[in-house]
């Protein structure tokens, strides 16, 4: 105890091993974090927000903004058997995925419970990059057993990646001199010599997690800071700003995207029986392809599909404006029969609606849905029971996000 009080004691050195890792962009991005609002992601120091979460959210919706995806996990799956192995691993059929294309997918246990979701990039004939929110190397290694020519490599630390999203993002990339970027279609990949140097490769995919026009930029870590500088120089007149986790969370709820730990519990980390989910429960049935060769979870998923999942993830528009955090859902205003629960909720500043993602018992989806909301008003707890409406389309899906070239911002 006395050592802590000892002014000669070097605290920084003593606790160095407890410091979080920093990302390849930290030297730049940390300058923006004037509020020191840090949190963590996969062992990395990560911004909750930089200046103001709402401001950063509006950069995504109104101008452009960057999100540091270095902590996201990235794996190369290479070799002649890469495609077959992947096709066995994931529920979607990726055998027809062309080179320089990306697709969204998920992978399950043999019981059909979802382990994680992510994107797969086909980089060349026998080389894929699989990304995921949490580490999955142990599972992928197991999945590769039995295939002669396939190698799974964790390249999470060896690629610097930055999501760049928002209506003016394409304009900024054009200004950076990336010729033809406006012709890049959603889920396509393009490669550019970085700063005109063909030894330095900048890979850009038209992907993201905000539901808006946006790109993801991939580069060798040695070029990370240069990329940041180039981008911020080009973006100066377009209100470029980094956004943190809070703003990302707002954008992804509006887009209707799911997160582990909120909409689904990763199967391999789940303690209680069936506290994890199947893709059908998460309304991701379109990611499951029973026509392709056998894949992990197929038998269980076929049964889930036939029987119908007990719960289904829905998008809700909730009356009033009180956030329905952790609310229970009922089939009537009387709140007798409990039919589900809210997973994510927010007031949407662009849509001007009280929106949420929720798990509702499938058989009740067509009926009335009521949320029991607790909130506090000047420290007094209050309760409200309000009606919810199921929304089928994403809350926010501007045409520019799909158009090629993107529509005028």
């Amino acid at each position: 105890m006395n050592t802590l009080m000892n002014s000669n004691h070097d605290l920084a050195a003593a606790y160095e091993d407890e410091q979080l890792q920093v990302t390849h962009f930290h030297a730049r991005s940390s300058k923006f974090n004037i509020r020191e609002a840090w949190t963590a992601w996969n062992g990395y120091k990560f911004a909750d927000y930089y200046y103001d979460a709402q401001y950063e959210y509006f950069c995504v919706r109104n101008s452009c903004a960057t999100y540091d995806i270095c902590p996201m996990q990235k794996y190369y799956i290479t070799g002649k058997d890469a495609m077959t192995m992947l096709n066995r691993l994931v529920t979607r059929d990726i055998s027809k995925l062309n080179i320089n294309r990306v697709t969204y997918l998920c992978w399950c246990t043999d019981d059909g419970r979802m382990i994680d979701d992510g994107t797969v990039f086909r980089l060349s004939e026998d080389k894929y990059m699989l990304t995921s929110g949490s580490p999955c190397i142990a599972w992928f290694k197991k999945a590769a057993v039995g295939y002669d020519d396939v190698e799974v490599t964790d390249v999470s630390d060896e690629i610097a990646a930055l999501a760049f999203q928002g209506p003016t993002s394409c304009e900024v990339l054009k200004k950076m001199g990336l010729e033809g970027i406006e012709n890049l279609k959603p889920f396509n990949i393009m490669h550019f010599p970085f700063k005109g140097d063909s030894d330095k490769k900048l890979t850009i995919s038209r992907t993201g997690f905000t539901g808006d026009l946006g790109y993801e930029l991939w580069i060798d870590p040695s070029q990370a800071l240069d990329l940041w500088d180039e981008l911020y120089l080009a973006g100066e007149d377009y209100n470029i700003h980094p956004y943190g986790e809070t703003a990302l969370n707002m954008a992804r709820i509006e887009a209707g995207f799911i997160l582990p730990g909120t909409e689904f519990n990763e199967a391999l980390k789940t303690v209680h029986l069936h506290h994890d989910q199947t893709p059908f429960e998460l309304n991701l049935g379109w990611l499951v392809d029973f026509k392709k060769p056998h894949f992990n979870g197929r038998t269980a998923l076929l049964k889930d599909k036939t029987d119908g999942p007990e719960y289904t993830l829905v998008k809700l528009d909730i009356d009033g404006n009180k956030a329905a955090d952790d609310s229970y859902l009922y089939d009537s205003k009387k709140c007798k029969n409990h039919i589900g629960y809210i997973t994510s909720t927010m007031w949407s500043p662009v849509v001007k609606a009280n929106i949420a993602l929720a798990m509702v018992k499938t058989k009740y989806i067509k009926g009335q849905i009521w949320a029991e909301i607790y909130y506090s008003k000047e420290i007094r707890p209050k309760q409200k029971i309000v009606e919810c409406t199921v929304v089928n389309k994403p809350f926010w899906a501007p045409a520019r996000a799909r158009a090629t070239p993107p529509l005028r911002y």
Partner: protein
Amino acid sequence: MKKYDAIIIGAGHNGLTNGAYLAKAGLNVLVVEKNAYIGGAAVSRELENGWIYSNCSYVSSMLRQTIHRDLNLTKHGLVLVPYLGTVNFGDNGKPLIHYHDGNVGYNHLRQHSAHDADSMFKFQADLTRYAQLIRKTLMRTPPNPTSFKPRDIKELLWLAKQFWGLGEKELYEYMRFFTTSAEEFLDDYFENDLIKAAMASPGIIGTALGVYSPGSAYILLHHVMGDVDGNIGAWGLARGGMGAISNAIASAFKGFGGEIRTNAGVQQVLVENGKAVGVVLENGDELRANIVVSNLDAKRTFTKCMDKKDLPPGIYEKAKNFKIRGSSGKVNIALSGLPKFTNLPDNKFINQGGQGFVGSLETMERAYDCWKHGLFSDDPFIETVIPSAWDPTVAPPGKHWMSCFVQYCPPVLANGGWNAKQKEAFGQSVIDKIERYSPGFKDLIVHKEIRTPVEIENEVGLTEGNIFQGELTIDQLLFNRPFPGYAQYRMPIKNMYMCGASTHPGGGVSAACGANAAREILMDLRKPNTVPEDSFYDE
């Protein structure tokens, strides 16, 4: 000839809102607008290639979120973007900065006055309490206090209950609030002149009152009762300019089958047997409808668009004497770059937000004195924002535009009418003042639009250029708006209604007047009500 269920005169945002709710109820509605474009005082126009000005109103906060949500205005293209940071420049010395972060803001206020930094908390709480009460009335039809109709009695009781809910002591304070001056109200809280001046400035915007005039405290409240996503008192920008609001409402209106005719100014409301039956356009065309709704201000409606003989005795005089003095000007300036202000750090969140060139209470009062004498001040109060610093759609990349709202500007000059030279001199007084705080500002100017009350009246039809379609003083508020006895959107002529800012709850881009009027009309027509009830953050 085609007969409409309803004709609305004027495609201001209230006329369009009214149209949307009537059309939503299944009525066959035509909106006729004298200009080639719609929006009235909520309009965006490209006068210089690449720059889009919000020519009149420039910031949004009053727009009823309930209406935004109900008409799905986002789907119709409307996105509201909050802007951060406001700076108030005193006559000299350190500017007063409003930071977005509460703790940072507190530290800054302390540098001006520790007393006021503390007092600000109570001030905000009191103001919010007052604002909440008014907010609750925005989408309700004011009761007629002399009526014995159950509906009026019920509404009066509701209103009384809201007031009593404040507690007796607060009730007296509230009463005072309606009649006191901004300066007197602020004296209770603050000691620092710049802080007082900055807080008082919303009390004079758009009104022919000074900071020391009784009644200016309420105007202050009127400007803080709106919100952006629940932040009461906050202001935001409409992406694409204020016209985006009108355009989105127009799109919703058309979605319900409504029809808009531009370049169709109304000469006169047609009245037969004491009933409104249609309108005659300036080009002589006659259009017929079961009801006629005027989006114009009360004075214009009754003194310019109606035959005196068609009006019941006394109404013409009431309208003629309606207090609608012009007191504001606007200068929109296209800039080749961002202006830099002296005495401010290079912090984009504070030097690109809004600026108040308030000077001091004294400076503002001297500017008011000029107005009284039919002059414009060479040291005016100016409220500016730089929308392009937040909205990429309103100026070319790297270029900007500044919206300068000027208080005061007389509708008639003492030394004769306005002419081109005087208009230019008025614009110059604004530019000179900004240049004092931002050396080099003049060199950035690419284009400017100078608007005295004359231009505002000629374009939007706001009598005397009064931005609220009539002063917001107690004698013209709630059940007194526009005239006692006619506050429920029904006019003295049968089948004729009003839906503009001359009616409750008054000026500002709120869409509430138009929606309230629609509710009353639908009730008279025995149609189902399509107008939603207001919902609040602060319930």
